[in-house]
């Protein structure tokens, strides 16, 4: 038996298939994963992501600390409530975790990190925060509900008073606001608009029920994975980990090399990798029927000089319900061209190389 979120009993009562995820008993799906996926693209879905770990960092030098700790630069966060997606790196450049950092006040930032990396993240933070006099506090008193989809914001706002609802709908993309007991962030992991609500654990069941009563579909981790992959978003442990750096993981956009004098952990290693060149993460769309899966081998296309040579590996693959095709993220040698082969059970199958995301805001962004 694993850890349970405050919504566990609700998941069970809804008939959810429960799986272990990072030590937590979490809902995989409540029936049809495909229907849950489509509900999020067309209307709205609600996810229990309370297994994720909220960490509050406080202290006079907290901004300075995070500018040292994180590969992206929290100096970009000038308005309270604004947020930043970033990696936290080892000196080798390997990714300890990816996370969202929220700027609340000059003395208070909030991080949301992955469930599976919680222990090592907290240790790493504590070790590096001490010299800056920054205190690290895990907020296990909070639950997180992700409400995602084109109608998600309106349905969430409808639970609030008129004034609070207006505040909620006024939150800019990738920003957050405190609304009574809620910390409401316009962030997510689906490629749709929506909110992530951090709220006291004891309030989570009633908010869940109110939202599902408004037609927001209970959605499990299965659909969360197909949604994020369509959105071209990385999954820690699949698409990057401590042995891989952001530049070979499609995350160069999250590394702030400017200003040059900012000395963040991992900087030197990334500068070397950038100078030497490295693999890259690309999107793949399978041309024929079948399903792409992580760890399948990517081979050079028959039209290339060295047909059949191993040039990379799929890091995340799935059947895309929106495209009705198999899609994947793959780490390959830079410059592989427009077409590759993927070894599916010994059969080389043609796949097209595309630039993720595949789907955003309900729209297909690649040519089929």
């Amino acid at each position: 038996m694993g850890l349970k979120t405050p919504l566990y009993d609700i998941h069970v009562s809804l008939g959810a298939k429960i799986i272990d995820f990072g030590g937590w008993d979490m809902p995989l799906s409540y029936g049809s994963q495909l229907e849950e996926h489509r509900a999020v693209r067309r209307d709205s879905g609600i996810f229990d992501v309370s297994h994720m770990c909220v960490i509050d960092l406080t202290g006079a030098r907290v901004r300075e600390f995070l500018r040292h700790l994180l590969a992206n630069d929290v100096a970009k966060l000038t308005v309270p409530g604004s947020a930043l997606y970033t990696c936290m790196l080892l000196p080798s450049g390997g990714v300890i975790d990816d996370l969202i950092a929220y700027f609340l006040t000059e003395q208070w930032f909030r991080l949301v990190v992955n469930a599976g990396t919680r222990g090592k993240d907290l240790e790493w933070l504590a070790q590096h925060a001490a010299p800056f006099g920054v205190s690290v506090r895990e907020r296990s008193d909070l639950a997180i509900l992700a409400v995602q989809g084109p109608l998600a914001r309106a349905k969430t706002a409808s639970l609030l008073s008129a004034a609070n609802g207006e505040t909620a709908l006024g939150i800019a993309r990738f920003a957050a606001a405190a609304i009574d007991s809620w910390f409401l962030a316009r962030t997510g992991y689906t490629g749709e608009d929506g909110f992530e609500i951090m709220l006291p654990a004891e309030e989570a069941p009633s908010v869940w029920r109110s939202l599902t009563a408004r037609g927001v579909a209970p959605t499990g981790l299965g659909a969360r994975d197909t949604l994020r992959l369509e959105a071209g978003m990385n999954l820690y442990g699949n698409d990057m980990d401590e042995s891989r750096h952001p530049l070979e993981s499609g995350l160069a956009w999250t590394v702030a090399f400017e200003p040059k004098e900012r000395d963040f952990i991992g900087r030197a290693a990334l500068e070397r990798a950038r100078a030497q060149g490295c693999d890259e993460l690309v999107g793949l769309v399978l041309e024929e029927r079948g399903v792409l899966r992580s760890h399948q081998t990517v081979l050079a296309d028959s039209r290339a000089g060295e047909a059949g040579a191993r040039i990379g590996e799929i890091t995340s693959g799935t059947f895309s319900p929106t495209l009705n095709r198999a899609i994947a993220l793959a780490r390959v040698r830079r410059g592989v061209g427009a077409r590759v082969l993927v070894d599916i059970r010994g059969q080389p199958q043609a796949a097209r190389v595309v630039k993720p995301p595949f789907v955003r805001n309900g729209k297909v962004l690649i040519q089929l």
Partner: protein
Amino acid sequence: MSEHVPDDLQYTRTHEWVRALANGQVEIGITDHAQEALGDLVFVEVPQVGRELKAGEACAVVESVKAASDVYSPVSGRVIARNEDLAQKPELLNSDPYGAGWLMRVDLSSAPADGPWLKAAEYAQYVKEAG
């Protein structure tokens, strides 16, 4: 969720079903329990007509959003038909695993007899015990 186990079929411990047809032929598919465990099916690969199967051999692949799973032939014999509808509608395996979601038909006449397989009650008990 209670799963359907029709009385007129026989079953394997790897969750295939066998339906006796006339003339020494059988129809083969996967059970309701199997489709339920796999979740939404999105791709099915069935053997070519004419292929000679050996009992216990991996002969088809069913893939859900979550995972790929092999289907093992319960019988030895020659494939005489395969369900071509599954190419476009793999979800038939979810909606009608014992009917429109059949996988293939096999002629047993040239092969030694296989089985016996599990009766419905035995399979239902097996699934229950396997949890």
